[in-house]
């Protein structure tokens, strides 16, 4: 088990170590610095790739092979793997606790994958390459840490660690309004983090590991120290930051998080709301999305790729990993709110994208719209009292998770595509483009694949997630599903219109026409890799669902169990809850021929 922790720690901290090594490079050795950065990200990618490759011979004599065999990720297992906790700050019962499951694994791979591509795309950065590379690698450590941390405090630390590199990466290497964009990004994120910190302490203070049954304590992978303490008789509550233990505490009958705190609402309700806002700022959902267009437009291309491809996913990941399992009561009561924000983001993002003149801004707003699907899919709590059929919510959450991966690929691709064009002609005005097809045919072909993936064309990766989310929304509320489906038309509208304005047309009449040279090999490889990924995951989504669905489904099953138990408790005590915001579930026959991706 320790081998797993060591392996994951190497994955997380290798980039930071690389940054440390880069400090000793002379700053004029730009070539060496760039190659080292790319090399480090590549090694990290290969290490994470090891997780999904099949095992070697189990009974190998060679200890190295044995370790390599042990650190694989067994597909189809819903639980955490390589989860191991060692005490870190024992005064606060904080553990250094890493682990991976089907929900985090695809995101970890996405992170390491996009980091390689972004590092390769960083050749376009020519200013202060050394500082840039150091910050870039620190950023990667933060991102990987967020997805692998299973201790709330550790999660928070990694979450914040990304902030500083990002601030400088936008502020120093960005476009003309970079300072404004950087501080705006910083302020918004910090507000979200502070709300999260309040919720963390709220939950920490309410938690008490000793209330958990012993088997649940074992399943929470508490560190040896905490385990011993939890068994010893003591009058003092044993608080915890362990995310698994917190989830078990949140879902147990008579959960300590159901204590009312303020305004008649429980700890779970408030914690859910605070965490939700914190995560939605990162997603970002309307109305807290305004930092995103600025940050995207000003950030250099590789950083835009990282920002759209990975950072936004952390919000969605936080909601599925933390909000719902730990605070199911809040999630249940606020499901309408989550869905509302999701659908508003979808519509608003799409409409705003249509109105843009700036190519990059358009892509940024399309991110808002696409991440709206994620929020809607996560929020569509379609478990009906009395029925508790988790099938549709499973669809929604699987769809949302898939959409995060798909959007990671397509949005990173779109930002790269915009960056390629900007590097050549130094403007992004949609009205001054046209006729790129004639000048750069390979580039245009790859771009169109990526744009169609974002559009949600069947056969490309964007389609799978969106359609699953719409199905799930249908059983939650038909009105939402109808609106959501029509957003697909809006999306098609702005993307097709963009393709017409940029790529089609007789000839390019904008400035710097002479600079429109074909793609370099490096650029071609990046765009082609993303296009291939878009096609592969569109045709064979099972490649991701294989790992993801068991974990997602288990999360939902647990929540369904929780809901059933709560309803029984309420029935026993005389109040039968009839959530008024749920529409009747007569849609099974419509969807019964469709299997949830888990099956």
């Amino acid at each position, binding site marked *: 088990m320790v081998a797993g922790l060591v392996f994951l720690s190497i994955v997380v901290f290798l980039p930071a170590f690389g940054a440390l090594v880069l400090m000793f490079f002379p700053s004029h050795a730009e070539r060496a610095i760039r190659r080292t950065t790319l090399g480090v990200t590549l090694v990290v990618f290969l290490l994470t790739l090891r997780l999904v490759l099949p095992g070697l011979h189990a009974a190998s004599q060679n200890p190295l092979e044995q370790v390599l065999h042990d650190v694989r990720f067994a597909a189809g297992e819903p639980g955490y793997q390589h989860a191991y906790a060692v005490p*870190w*700050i*024992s*005064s*606060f019962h904080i553990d250094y606790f890493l682990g991976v499951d089907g929900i985090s694994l695809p995101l970890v791979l996405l992170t390491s994958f996009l980091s390689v591509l972004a590092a390769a795309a960083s050749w376009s950065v020519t200013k202060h390459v050394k*500082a840039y590379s150091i910050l870039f690698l620190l950023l990667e450590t933060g991102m990987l840490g967020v997805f692998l941390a299973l201790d709330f405090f550790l999660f*928070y*630390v990694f979450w*914040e*660690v990304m*902030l*500083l590199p990002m*601030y*400088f990466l936008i*502020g*120093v290497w960005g476009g003309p309004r*970079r*300072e404004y964009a950087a*501080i705006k990004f*910083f*302020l918004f994120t*910090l*507000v979200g983090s*502070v709300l999260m*910190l*309040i919720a963390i*302490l*709220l939950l*920490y*203070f309410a938690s008490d590991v000793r209330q958990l049954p012993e088997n649940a304590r074992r399943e929470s992978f508490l560190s040896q120290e905490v385990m011993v303490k939890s068994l010893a008789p003591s009058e003092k509550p044993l608080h915890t930051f362990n995310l698994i233990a917190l989830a078990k505490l949140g879902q147990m009958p008579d959960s300590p998080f159901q204590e009312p705190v*303020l305004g008649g609402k429980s700890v779970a309700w408030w914690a859910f709301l605070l965490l939700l806002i914190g995560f939605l700022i990162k997603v970002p959902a309307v109305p807290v999305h305004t930092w995103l267009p600025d940050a995207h437009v000003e950030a250099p291309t590789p950083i835009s790729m990282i920002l759209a491809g990975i950072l936004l996913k952390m919000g969605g990941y936080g909601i599925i990993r933390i909000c719902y399992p730990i605070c199911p009561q809040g999630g249940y009561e606020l499901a309408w709110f989550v869905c509302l924000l999701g659908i508003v983001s979808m519509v608003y993002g799409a409409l705003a994208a249509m109105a843009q003149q700036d190519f990059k801004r358009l892509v940024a707003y399309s991110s808002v719209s696409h991440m709206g699907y994620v929020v809607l899919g996560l929020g569509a709590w379609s478990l009906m009292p009395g029925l508790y059929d988790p099938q549709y919510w499973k669809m929604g959450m699987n769809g949302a998770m898939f959409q995060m991966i798909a959007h990671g690929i397509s949005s990173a691709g779109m930002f790269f595509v915009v960056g390629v064009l900007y590097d050549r002609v130094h403007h992004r005005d949609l009205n001054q483009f046209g006729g790129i097809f004639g000048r750069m045919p390979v580039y245009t072909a790859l771009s169109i694949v990526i744009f169609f993936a974002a559009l949600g064309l069947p056969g490309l990766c964007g389609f799978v997630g969106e359609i699953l989310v719409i199905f799930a929304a249908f059983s939650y509320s038909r009105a939402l599903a109808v609106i959501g489906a029509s957003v697909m038309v809006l999306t098609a509208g702005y993307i097709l219109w963009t393709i017409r304005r940029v790529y089609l047309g007789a000839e390019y009449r904008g400035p710097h026409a002479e600079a429109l040279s074909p793609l370099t090999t490096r650029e071609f490889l990046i765009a082609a890799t993303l296009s291939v990924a878009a096609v592969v995951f569109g045709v064979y989504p099972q490649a991701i669902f294989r790992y993801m669905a068991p974990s997602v489904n288990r999360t939902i099953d647990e929540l369904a169990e929780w809901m059933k138990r709560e309803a029984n408790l309420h029935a026993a005590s005389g109040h039968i809850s009839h959530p008024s915001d749920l529409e009747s579930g007569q849609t099974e026959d419509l969807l019964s021929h469709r299997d949830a991706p888990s099956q």
Partner: protein
Amino acid sequence: MIDLHRTLDHLSFSLSAWGPELVLCAGIVVLLLSRMVFPLGRYLPFVISLIVCCLALFLAGPWNGTWPIVGENSVPIFSGLLAWDGLGAFLKTLILGFSALFVVFLWLSGFPKPAHATDFLVLYLGAVVGMCVMVSAEHLLLAFLGMEMASVPSYVLAGFDRRARQSAEAAMKFAVFGAASAGVMLYGISLLGGVLGTFSIPQMADQLMLLAASGDYHGQAVILVLSSLMILVGLAFKLSAVPFHFWLPDVFEGAAAEVGTFLSVVSKAAALGLLTRLVLGLLGYGVLEATNAGVLPIVTFLVVTLSLLSAATCTYGNLAAYGQNNIKRLLGYSTIAHAGYMLMPIAAAVAVLFRDASLARWAIATLLFYLVTYLFMNFAAFATVTFLRNAFRSETIADFAGLIRTSPGVVVCMSLALFSLVGLPPLAGFAGKFAIFSSLVFGGLWSLFVIAAINTVLSLFYYVRIIKTMVFDVPVRDPLPQVRLASPKGIFLAVLTVPVIVLGILWQPVFMLACRAAGYPW
């Protein structure tokens, strides 16, 4: 005879427990004499002071055995005027550790010219003795004496730069404000002592609990409230808590940055130590038998007063820092804001004292831990400002524009210190803030916690403005001066910055030490 024996025993024990202060006093004498013997030893005063501080640190440090616990088995020395216990010893270690670094810092910055170094250091060491008395006082008169011993040299130090008009003005303001607040405090002390019939804090606690048990305080509630508010005025002045903060920005701007460093770090630590001893000591550390109904008015009064004071201080400091162009002034307001943060755990400690006395000790431990983190991050920020002043001959933020082009190492150190002051992980400031926030949550002071959290966001903007100027902006100075990291000054900065990172990641040992000092049971 037996009595004499016992007295002598007690005296010899007291003197041994008072070792650090004695070393300091001896050091002052040696410093004064050394000038007569070696009038030409340019760096001799620094060397002597450094040796004295290190020796005192060695005597005070946590390495000589275990500490008695304050309020439980703290050892009275000098027949109960002072006490030897964990709280005092921890803060003395902090103060003396800072002093050792501070002497090196003075040496590097070259502020007191070698000719005046003796004067400066004698005054400084005198103030240190005063602060050591403050953090171990068990008697209100000694507490007052300690405060004055710490304050009077500070007034002189603030005006040490005799040729600068601003410096003289700062000293004048400082002295007038200080004298007035000291007078008010003394009056408050006499009132409180009169009501309770004694000046010894443990005995006052007994009396107060008797009064509280009587229910109606024998009609002396008004005097109690008045006297405690007056004492608080004196301490609020030292802490620069709103509304007694007016002196601080002017003094920080006028006095040399070196003096500001000392005022913003250890002076605050000593005042907080004294406040803790007073507030918790008068309530008997929750150990004494107390009827809940009786102490409730006192607890409510103290919690509300301290909460309001801390919330106002913190918010005012952070908002007022926005408009500053002078970096010393800005750091002055940041000091005010941090004084607000550091008042919060004391309020939390009072709030839980009679509910769970061990949680009150936890709150004090978080305060002590915060002080350690604050020492390093604030010292690093002030040291950077001092070295930049030497290089730029300016303290205007705009003049430091584009500094990263010539002095990247220094800018990185400064950025880490400032981000730590904001409270971003994985830096020490976050660990400290997190600990303080936890004490607020345990104390049930949710509204104060939310205010503190909002203040974190408020503070981001002005700290980042300094970093933005140094990193993003185009230089206005040509040629741009340089402070190299590979120089004694740069290395000193790095030495201060490394703990800012290390304490943000591996803070368990230091936090354990703070818990032990505060007597939180494990």
